[in-house]
């Protein structure tokens, strides 16, 4: 009976092919109909260092990368040392005997596969080591090889028969080695590693969270991007640099993050949907410009691919530490909206909500991704570009008539309206002239410092923000809505929470879960009902302070149970499960 869920990890020295082995395998597997979800743990430096690529593969939907590894391929000694502890009991270790000689262990099965030797000596194709490794893994979990062959033909066919044949030969060598030296061995339990494919369920694509967000930004009609390279956000800029000019847009790599955000504001003032992407350190630099956007009431979208902080922190590690910065960072009293997608697919849709909300409420919207989402690739349903209609800004209408003198009275750019949202003009519109400014201003946009103006316009800007929850995107719900134990979460942690709730149900513990997409302002109408009937409400997030928990506690005036991890890694499902069991026991004792 094949398994529906297998976790494979390829570990080794960065630059050695960990990433390319994983990516080739993932793309082939997705085409073959397997569900895939990956995670990549890059090395800390550009050249060298331990890294791994983890692939969860099978026939069911996955929400996290998997706590432990069923099949570990260790390219070298360091990979064995650092990853073998994550191998599950009864798992399979494949290692290159030229690099490492692991001792036998009762908790695992292990086989040597001389990858370097096969590539170098047998095939005379040292670079083909990765493709040999792909063949090895494919044979172990039972993937039909024609998908990989086709993929190799697509990739190398254009480069001449020699290079293609070399790669096909490498694949064959890997497949053959496993068949001749591992699968046919007595004691090899094939059923532990053979994986089921999912039934045909429509077309799927394999993308990372960053790619999904980039595709979503294009779908939303973004026309201007300015940014600065930073891990793990750079590939959003690079993706859009290649694609935006194809739809008449422009990408500028600016001199720094401060310039980036100010360029975005200029483009937004000029009437275009504009965005930037960065990570925590960049958001810190952009705080001043975000305040300007609040005061001048300019739409803009900022994608923050959060990473472990503070300060330079751990550039390639995971944390959900920027929520307070996103919602509140900045002097004075600013208005902005914070959204957080919960999965790779969700990145595609939430960024479109971000642009819509920015345009409607004329303020900055920050979309919080995180290292896990940015980097993870997943097979997701082919996105639907029609699903989310595009909203437009409330626009000033030019008066009719020709040959009218330029001065027609002063346009009230910041007109006090019931909703707080004023019609905005775009340069080029006759009679719509105004000066956007960060100074406090009256309806005409003229700087004014009197008490009445300050009072009325502070209230105007916050009235806009107060209305935003009515447009909050739908939250994710997990588990049993009627349960007495509840977990609130956000971002990629939602995946691990979802899995923990499923496992708890298997143990007879009923749990309800909710992951809102709008984190600020608090979507009270979505979250308050969740509290009803709950004797225990936990908030799970990867940060030390319980940033969302504290926002909710302040909002509701009641304490919540904080469930935190802050080790630079995503939550392990088993740790969330332990927290659930504790909550369940606490309730039982209380009774």
């Amino acid at each position, binding site marked *: 009976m094949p398994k529906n869920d297998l976790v494979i990890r390829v570990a080794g020295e960065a630059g050695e092919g960990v990433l390319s082995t994983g990516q080739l395998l993932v793309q082939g597997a997705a085409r073959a109909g397997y569900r895939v979800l990956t995670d990549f743990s890059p090395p800390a430096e550009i050249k060298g260092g331990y890294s791994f690529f983890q692939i969860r593969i099978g026939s069911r939907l996955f929400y996290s990368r998997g706590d432990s590894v069923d099949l570990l391929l260790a390219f070298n000694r360091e990979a064995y040392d650092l990853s073998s502890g994550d191998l599950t009991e009864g798992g399979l270790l494949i290692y290159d005997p030229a690099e490492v000689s692991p001792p036998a262990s009762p908790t695992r099965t292990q086989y040597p596969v001389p990858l370097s030797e096969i590539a170098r000596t047998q095939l005379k194709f040292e670079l083909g080591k990765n493709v040999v490794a792909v063949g090895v893994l494919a044979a172990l979990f039972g993937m039909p090889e024609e998908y990989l062959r086709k993929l190799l033909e697509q990739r190398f066919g254009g480069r001449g028969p020699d290079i293609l044949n070399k790669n096909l030969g490498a694949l064959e060598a890997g497949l053959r080695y496993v068949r001749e030296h591992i699968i046919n061995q007595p004691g090899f339990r094939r059923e532990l590693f053979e994986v089921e494919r999912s039934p045909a369920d429509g077309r799927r694509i394999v993308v990372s969270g960053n790619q999904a967000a980039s595709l979503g930004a294009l779908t939303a009609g973004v026309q201007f991007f300015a940014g600065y390279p930073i891990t793990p956000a750079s590939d959003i800029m690079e993706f859009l640099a290649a694609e935006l000019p194809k739809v*008449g847009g422009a990408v500028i790599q600016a001199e720094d993050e401060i310039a980036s955000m100010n360029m975005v504001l200029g483009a937004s*003032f000029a009437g275009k949907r504009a965005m930037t992407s960065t990570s925590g350190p960049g958001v810190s630099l952009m705080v001043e410009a975000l305040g300007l956007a609040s005061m001048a009431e300019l739409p803009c979208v900022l994608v923050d691919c959060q990473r472990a902080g503070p300060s330079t922190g751990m550039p390639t590690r995971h944390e959900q530490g920027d929520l307070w910065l996103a919602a509140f960072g900045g002097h004075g009293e600013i208005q902005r909206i914070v959204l957080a997608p919960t999965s790779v697919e969700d990145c595609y849709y939430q960024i479109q909500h971000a642009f819509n909300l920015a345009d409607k409420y004329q303020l900055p919207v920050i979309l919080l991704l995180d290292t896990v989402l940015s980097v993870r690739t997943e097979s997701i349903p082919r996105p639907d570009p029609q699903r989310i209609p595009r909203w437009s800004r409330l626009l000033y209408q030019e008066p009719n008539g020709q040959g009218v003198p*330029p001065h027609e009275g002063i346009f009230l750019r910041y007109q006090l309206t019931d909703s707080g949202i004023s019609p905005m003009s775009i340069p080029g519109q006759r009679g719509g002239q105004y000066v956007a400014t960060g100074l406090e201003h009256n309806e005409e946009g003229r700087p004014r410092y009197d008490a009445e103006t300050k009072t009325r316009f502070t209230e105007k800007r916050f009235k806009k923000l107060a209305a935003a929850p009515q447009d909050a995107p739908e939250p994710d719900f997990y588990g049993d809505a009627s349960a007495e134990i509840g977990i609130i979460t956000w971002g990629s942690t939602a995946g691990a929470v979802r899995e923990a709730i499923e496992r708890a149900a298997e143990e007879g513990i009923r749990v309800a879960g909710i992951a809102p997409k709008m984190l600020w302002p608090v979507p009270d109408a979505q979250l308050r009902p969740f509290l009803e009937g709950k004797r225990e409400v936990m908030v799970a997030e990867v940060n030390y302070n319980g940033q969302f928990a504290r926002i909710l506690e302040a909002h509701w005036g009641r304490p919540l149970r904080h469930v935190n991890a802050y080790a630079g890694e995503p939550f392990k499902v088993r740790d969330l499960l332990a927290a659930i069991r504790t909550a369940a026991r606490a309730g039982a004792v209380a009774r």
Partner: protein
Amino acid sequence: MADTATLQYTVDDYKSSEKPTWCPGCGDFGVLNALYHAMREKNYNPKDVVLVSGIGCSSRLPFFVATYGFHGVHGRAMPIATGVKVARPDLHVLVLGGDGDAFAIGGGHFMHAARRNLNVTYVIMDNQTYGLTKGQASPTAQRGYVHKAAPQGTLEEPVNPLLLAMACGASFVARGFSGQPKDLAQLILAGIEHQGLAIIDTYSPCPTFNKVNTFKTYREEVAPLPADHDPTNFEAALKIAASSMPRYLGVIYRREGPSYEQLLEQRKTGTEADLPRLLDSLFDRFS
């Protein structure tokens, strides 16, 4: 008032209802007038002009003009203007600000603006002090300038804006003086007509706080360019730019070529109408 039949704008058409907040005798009045005249010369429709500024007395200028404007935060006028012009190359964009905005906090952006060569005109109202915050030294203040934050005088060398601009690759470098508004209007016009970033460092004295560099001293120290000066000669321009005395006025250096947003436009291979097809091909690529 404008002649509605042929829509020839007058200077009054560029004046907003906001009265300038500058002190009587401020050099910026001369710059404002020169700007009004330059725009009238080009017969710009005010709706098609965006004036971008930073923070400082001179950065208040956009409020006094009946065009669109963006009074940004300190030092960030060039990045904002870059966003405006790249998003909408059809708009006429001018950048206004002071020597602090351009060379202190904006110093980093100044360098990259010169490299980028966007088709905008940057008029820097250089009074060698910080007016709005009451008289501290700016990056162009002369060495030994005394103010409350340096009671014994500054220790730093002033930056030379013209040399800086040339070193950073600027394609049009000029110096003006608000005490000669007619010439300044011509300079601004030349800057507008230049295809690329036109930097016009403009002496614009602060009578309230800078008692050292005044209209009187500037009048004594400025000089027209030598009659044989060839602004297309980089080495000759460097010599002129390096001269602290006399303070030469005019177009010091110019170089023809395409501007940044022009080059970006040339790289566009489609329009928004191509989006559905592009998305389809991208989804296919990731399948």
